[in-house]
């Protein structure tokens, strides 16, 4: 169980004007500024839950994950994970936790993965039996048994990610932080990682916090999502409920007979999709009025009315932050 109360993190930084002149000025006179990467976060996650943490770059996802993994100290607030305060970094907590960052490698680059695993076995003091059992399960499910004896630097990106997953999960962690585990992978590798995580979650029921840029990851894996914007949560709830929050909006896709002028559709708040197709979202009650208008102004070939997709909604929430 994870319980977070009033958690916040401020970073201070100094600014400098560009160029040599700016540098000289900064040598003697510096403006110190503080930026809140996280503001007053409250979060509760139960046993066996898997949540998706979504946000734009710099929204605070990674900072939150790093605080919960015990790497970064928060500026204020409390957190308790299975009774431990993460940033005290007790051995007991670290033994039950795993962190995987898609952009930072943890296995020894020049050595075969199995060598790194042996070191991890020693670090986590795993018995030979459990070690062998986990290696077998993980390498078979990830279909990577063959590649474990090749130096990691010679593996493909997808294979490397699988090795990273193995390294992180060897000690049966109860809490797992996954920061962008599918970043840079091709579609089939993404899919393999996703399938694996699904299976793993079902089998061992750990708490998993997943951040990803790919909505596909989140949609496939997480029932509950948290959307974070400028260091604050703008949504915390079921993924399926997100759609209802915007239930009043409809998305129109209109195909016209000929090309149209950009200014004309922008006046309606529309977005060009291709040469003669544009889309816009409008409130449900204005639907009749607006469609009539389009038919009078454009030579409409086709008109399609849909509910907004989850991607669209989340994107707009990440930008506007409606609550």
């Amino acid at each position, binding site marked *: 169980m994870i319980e977070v109360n009033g958690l916040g993190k401020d970073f201070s930084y100094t600014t400098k004007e560009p160029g040599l002149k700016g540098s000289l000025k900064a040598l003697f006179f510096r403006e110190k500024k503080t930026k809140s990467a996280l503001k007053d976060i409250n979060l509760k996650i139960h046993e066996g839950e898997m949540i998706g943490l979504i946000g734009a770059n710099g929204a605070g996802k990674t*900072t939150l994950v790093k605080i919960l993994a015990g790497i970064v100290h928060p500026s204020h607030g409390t957190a308790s994970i299975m009774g431990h305060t993460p940033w005290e970094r007790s051995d007991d907590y670290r033994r039950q936790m795993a962190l995987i960052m898609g952009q*930072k490698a943890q296995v*020894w680059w020049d050595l075969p993965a199995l060598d790194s695993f042996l070191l991890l076995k020693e670090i986590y003091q795993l018995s030979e039996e459990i070690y062998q059992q986990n290696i077998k399960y993980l390498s078979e499910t990830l279909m990577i048994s063959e590649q474990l004896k090749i130096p990691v630097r010679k593996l493909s990106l997808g294979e490397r990610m699988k090795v990273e997953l193995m390294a992180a999960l060897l000690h049966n962690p109860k809490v797992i932080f996954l920061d962008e585990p599918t970043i840079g992978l091709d579609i089939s590798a993404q899919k393999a990682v996703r399938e694996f995580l699904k299976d793993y979650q079902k089998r061992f029921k750990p708490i998993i916090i997943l951040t990803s840029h790919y909505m596909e990851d989140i949609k496939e894996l997480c029932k509950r999502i948290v959307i974070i914007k400028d260091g604050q949560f703008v949504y915390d709830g079921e993924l399926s409920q997100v759609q209802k929050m915007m239930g009043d909006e409809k998305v129109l896709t209109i195909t016209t007979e000929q090309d149209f002028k950009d200014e004309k559709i922008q006046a309606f708040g529309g977005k060009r999709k291709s040469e003669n197709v544009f889309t816009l979202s409008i409130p449900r009650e204005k639907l009749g009025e607006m469609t009539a208008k389009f038919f009078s102004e454009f030579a409409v070939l086709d008109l399609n009315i849909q509910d907004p997709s989850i991607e669209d909604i989340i994107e707009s929430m990440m930008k506007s932050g409606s609550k």
Partner: protein
Amino acid sequence: MRYLKLYLYFLRFSFSKALSFRLDFFFRIFMDLIYYFINISFFKLVYLHTPLLGGWTQPQVMIFVACYLVIDAINMTVFSSNMWWLPYFINKGELDYYLIRPVSPLFFLSLREFSANSFVNFFMAFGFLIYALISYPVPFSIGELLLFSALIINGVFLYYLIQMLMILPVFWTHSSRGFVDLFYALGLAMERPDKIFKGWLRIIFTTILPFSLIASFPTKIFLEDFEWSALGHLVLVTTIFWILMLTVWKIGLKNYSSASS
């Protein structure tokens, strides 16, 4: 015990890595040979002009030279690679994976890379020390030799502590090297007998920048009449530096911002 086992893994990894870079392997040995040659010649040259330097005769100074060469070789083998990478790790946010493991991150980061290349040089330096000890006109007792070995190990440790204290400010300055360049500039003080420093310089090199305590004090305690005060001084300063380093490390980690990818 567990840490010893972990260290054996570091050794294994480092050796299999080093052996795959052959050219670098031989080049390092060549470089260090030149370094040893220059050091020994320098003092031989000095003794062409004076019978005593800092109160020591030539055979005594040869033991001193061998002493700091051994300390330097151990440092190069055990710590230097790790010390080289540490500021980079701190700045680039690469400490992350070391902090989440249930082992001391300080142990991991200080000893992770064993420079198998320099290991050969350690044998050369050690050989020279044996030679200097055998050529000494008076034989040494086992007790004296054991004491000297312990003092050398203390010297290595102190050398590491000073280095760390120069690197750790990187947590705040975010500069690329911390004050390590200062460390190398002043490090030369370690290669001179402590008695040649007088006045405030002597105070500095035996307290706040205790380079004289690394090799010169051990040699002094070993060769000259045993003095509890010198030994006490050595142990006290080492202990204070140890506590200081651990404290700075702890505060530094609180300040660690883990720069994001």
